[in-house]
């Protein structure tokens, strides 16, 4: 698919040219064949709003959307994949494309609160995978969490400020 067609699909999905202004970067490498371009775009948008760049890097910088896409393609059964991808078609989430970042963040927050109140497991799982894609990434674990594969010792009562600093 050439870049124009790719963008057209994304634009059609969100209903107009207004979306172009807010379309997050979507340059998945080795995109899974069973995750459509549209789904990739929607997932990227949602995860970018969920885990934005702040004083620290955001989800897009660690390729969290790609991670979720690969999980859906390679880990999930067809049934699970369909259930989770269907979440992306919810009108509240599709509508995010027409919004600026502030408005989209408020809308996603409202959707998230309502989904948890309704015990929406599919959204919960999609959110969990998104978080795993970010907090489980090499960049996050090494640069923020300071993960050590081989700690070599155990301190049962460390001062948090010393550890985090």
């Amino acid at each position: 698919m050439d870049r124009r067609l790719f963008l057209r699909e994304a634009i059609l999905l969100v209903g107009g040219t207004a979306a172009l202004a807010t379309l997050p970067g979507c340059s998945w490498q080795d995109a899974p064949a069973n995750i459509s371009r549209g789904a990739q775009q929607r997932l990227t948008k949602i995860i970018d709003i969920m885990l934005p760049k702040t004083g620290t890097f955001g989800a897009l910088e660690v390729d969290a959307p790609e991670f979720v896409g690969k999980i859906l393609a390679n880990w999930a059964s067809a049934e699970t994949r369909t259930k989770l991808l269907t979440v992306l078609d919810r009108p509240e989430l599709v509508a995010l494309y027409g919004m600026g970042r502030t408005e989209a963040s408020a809308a996603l927050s409202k959707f998230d609160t309502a989904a948890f109140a309704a015990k929406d497991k599919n959204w919960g799982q999609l959110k969990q995978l998104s978080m795993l894609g970010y907090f489980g990434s090499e960049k996050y674990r090494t640069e923020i969490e300071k993960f050590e594969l081989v700690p070599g010792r155990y301190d049962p009562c460390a001062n948090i400020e010393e550890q985090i600093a």
Partner: protein
Amino acid sequence: MSTDFDAIVIGSGMSGGWVAKELTERGLKVLVLERGRDIDPAKDFQDLVNPWELPNGNEVPEDEQKRDYVIQSQFGGFQEANKELWVKDSDHRYNTPAGKPFAWIRGYQVGGRSLMWGRQSYRLSDLDFEANKKDGIAVDWPIRYTDLAPWYDYVEKFAGIAGSKEALPQLPDGQFLKPMGLNCVEEEFAKGIFDKFGGRRVIPGRTANLSEVTQEHTDLGRSPCQYRSYCIRGCSFGASFSSVSATLPAAKRTGNLTLVPNSIVHSIVTDPTTGRASGVRVIDARTKNPTTYTGRIIFLNASSIGSAQILLNSANNANPSGLANSSDQVGRNLMDHLFNINTQATVPGHLDKMVFGRRPNGMYIPRFRNIGDDKQDFLRGYGYQGSIQREAWEAAANRPGIGAQWKDSLARPGSWKISLGGFGEMLPNPANRVALSARDKDKWGIPLVEINCEHGPNEKKMATKISEDAQEMLKAMGYNIIKVKAEPAPPGTGIHEMGTLRMGHDPKTSVLNKWSQTHDIPNLFCTDGGAMTSSACQNPSLTYMALSARAANHAHELLQEGLL
């Protein structure tokens, strides 16, 4: 290669490794038969892989789980990084009756489940060894604590058990390495429980991880624990005790060990003249070619269910109901610990503290029910295992929140959270049994095992109390309970199968004598979980180790005296 040996050991896991070590070190030529593949830690252990390098976030694909690991995936430790260490249920089937699930969790490779075990290592006491007799349940253990105490000492020193001396009569102290101790919040919990519940104890778990090393450990190439807590992927440092890290290397260096992987034991062969065990009939797992090995003594260490299967499948004209089964107890009295009764709570405060490193251990609350003046409406008791740790980002996945502030808040550790899980004693019941299918066979032509096992009234009463006591403790500490799971998981899930070849005084009612020797066939021994006359509530592997070393020593003495 010769097919004749002084001794044949069936199984290379926790107990088989010990028997191999003890017999080879006493100069016997020993054959160890392992039904699974050989293990090369450098290639087969995934403990040096960073978490982000593991496919699918370390989760096994759903379709693969459903197709190949429908039982094994029920165990929390099953993951992409170690899936090759668990059997494929699609290849290794067994039957259970409708409505009576039994989770048979297995690892078929050199080292067996000793590569993935939880490493919690506790002695039984005379509270346990005397319980059946006092309660009039099943049969009496033919040994008491004093019989096993020196062997506990012996195996603890070699294996390396990190623990603290507590002077508790129901949980005897041992030969410990320095403990992998409680963190500061667990210390506060321990003090609170002691004060609020009349001296009830919370202690560091006793774990088979090298918190420090002795010359005996380093001689085998074992190193101190690196506090990674990836033991369940196999430990490349040899700090976690297993057959592969310790007993089999010790056996190998004697020059007396022959280890043959991919050897599925079909049955034990007997001499028609003497009635004694003369050999083992084996099927090659890959080629299906049969081989018969001969030996002067034979040790069954194929796990409680596996060893019963072999004896039942060894039936012959002289032993129509199976070998060593004149008592009709082979396969009966299957037990597992009550498991997966969990309570979780958030712990207020201590937000200025965290831990460094990942301790492969937790805290332990030794049994306090039906001890001394405490009397319950059920028999026996239970202990708890758990930990108090700071929540990570995963906890936030279960509640609303998105966006910049939320994301940044998750960069710091969350609240402290306690998790307590009960391990309860299951009573022996002859109706809980392993039998052979009359109809179904595996792809090697061996009858499938049929497992018929369920919790009885005593277990159900105990399960209720396990949950109630946990909640009471957490509430008394002022913690906020966030999860209660009061129903135990199906039997088997504790991965502590026991009792199918129980020890006892009387050949009419038990399979093994006080030396783990079958009453019927003196040169046939069993020292895996099958030997357990009762289950106690402590994790049993340390007792298997002690029984194995003791029985191997006795078998050698009998050989020297010309009695076998």
